[in-house]
């Protein structure tokens, strides 16, 4: 007998509201329908009513986890419309903040995944380590969520003592190497709860156009930091972890390995941080008429902004945001088909969904 079980829009397994209507045959999921839109704030529409300073603050609030990525992508698009190129120091600082954001996002996800696995001590450990990343971000920007680091033509704040930040990163890395990485890569609990469930095949991943760790865990080795480098990524040496299996464990491994690669990038960027200005321009911008597009590899995958401007206007005429969860979410339907009902909370969480980003 077939029956429908609603999960959400408010559910302990969901960080934010969305709804999954799960169709079951006994304990086995045969299909699922996704319903989003509960966080719709009309941000793209609001952006048209904000000037070039206000719109940066607005877009930082699209997401509470990867807030910096949204301003980075927006500012890169606005720099194309104003003809400004950020100075090298600003490009390095952008890389540092982006990688710190990736670290805290991946560790936060690891904590939530651990909780959904029933591994609550690991949840506490992950959040303890995440707090250390937040401390670094707070030490640099003075903020814990909206860092306000990016501006058109550069960054707002300097990293005055890179050596101190570097020692914080090294302590952080030791903690991760000692706990999170070995537990997630070798523990029996993680293996038994994650291996072989929520499989997204390589063919389906390509067909759905999924991005970020979800794609890389299904054998699709795409990463904009490598394929279309921005900021100072062309000067960094790092690997793009790819796993072929497409299951929840593969997504876990990809993120664990990306944590290590982020630490590697952070060490390089902090060591080689060039001297110089933080931004170009005098704060007054001459926009040309046209549309500019920018893409960035966020913790969850590719973010793309298209921004249109009319010359002499203070406000954009259009801002379109394509977030990674928007393209990763439809894959959940295929991941849960054939899975046990009890595994669906972990499977849907394995894409690291952000519904605020999705709905905007």
């Amino acid at each position, binding site marked *: 007998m077939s029956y429908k079980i609603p999960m959400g829009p408010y559910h302990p397994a969901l960080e934010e509201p969305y709804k999954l209507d799960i169709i079951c045959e006994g304990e086995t999921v045969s299909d699922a329908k996704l319903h989003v*839109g509960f966080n719709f704030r009309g941000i*793209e529409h609001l952006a048209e009513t904000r000037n070039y300073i206000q719109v940066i603050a607005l877009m930082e609030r699209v997401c509470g986890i990867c807030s910096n990525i949204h301003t980075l992508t927006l500012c890169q698009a606005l720099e194309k419309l104003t003809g400004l190129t950020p100075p090298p120091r600003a490009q390095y600082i952008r890389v540092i903040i982006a990688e710190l954001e990736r670290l805290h996002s991946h560790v936060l996800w690891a904590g939530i995944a651990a909780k959904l696995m029933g591994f609550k001590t690991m949840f506490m450990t992950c959040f303890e380590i995440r707090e250390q990343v937040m401390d670094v971000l707070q030490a640099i920007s003075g903020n814990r969520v909206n860092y306000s680091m990016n501006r058109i033509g550069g960054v707002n704040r300097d990293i005055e003592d890179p050596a101190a930040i570097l020692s914080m990163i090294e302590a952080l890395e030791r903690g991760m190497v000692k706990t999170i990485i070995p537990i997630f890569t070798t523990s029996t609990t993680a293996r038994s709860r994650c291996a072989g469930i929520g499989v997204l095949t390589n063919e389906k991943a390509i*067909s*759905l156009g999924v991005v970020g760790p979800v794609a890389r865990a299904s054998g699709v080795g795409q990463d904009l930091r490598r394929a*279309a480098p921005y900021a100072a990524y062309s000067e960094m040496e790092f690997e793009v972890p790819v796993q072929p299996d497409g299951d929840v464990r593969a997504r876990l491994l990809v993120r664990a390995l990306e944590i290590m690669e982020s630490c590697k990038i952070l060490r390089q960027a902090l060591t080689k941080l060039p001297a110089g200005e933080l931004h170009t321009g005098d704060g007054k911008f001459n926009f040309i008429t046209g549309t*500019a597009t*920018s893409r960035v590899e966020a913790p969850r995958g590719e973010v*793309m902004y298209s921004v249109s401007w009319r010359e002499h206007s203070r*406000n954009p005429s259009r801002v379109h945001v*394509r977030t990674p969860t928007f393209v990763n979410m439809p894959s959940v339907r295929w991941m849960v088909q054939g899975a046990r009902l009890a595994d669906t909370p972990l499977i849907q969480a394995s894409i690291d969904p952000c519904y605020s980003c999705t709905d905007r």
Partner: protein
Amino acid sequence: MNALETILENLTTNEQLPAPWVESGGVYWLNAPDLNIREVAHAMNALRARFITITAYQLPGSKGLRLEYHWDLDGRLLGFSFPLAAKSIESIYDLCEAVDWIEREVHEGFAVVFAGREYEPLLLREGNTCGVNLRETGAPGKPGSGLLGQEEVAK
């Protein structure tokens, strides 16, 4: 080989794309007349390009809408622009599965009809009216909208 296939062949053979490709704002635009979205989708599939998104623009006055389709080919961002006078265009959902959600979003936001497919509500709830992003229905600065117009914000 048709004209579109000849143009797209440049993508795999050239570092710098020659005309009719035009690089602007971080995108390689194909400025070719009489482009057909389904032919473009077929060609992108043949090249194994990755679909990214559709961006809808409401043009001033009664000029209608413009849709911009984007694909990624090995890190290069490709763009194809389609003016819509009649608010309708052929769906490519049957050719490109990744287009499903964005076609539904554009349909709900701008009331564009993607011919040849069926819709389920995405961001809207059942019974809501499509076209929530169109300026006629919720224009900033219009009485009752609660939003400031661009001119007012710019003061």
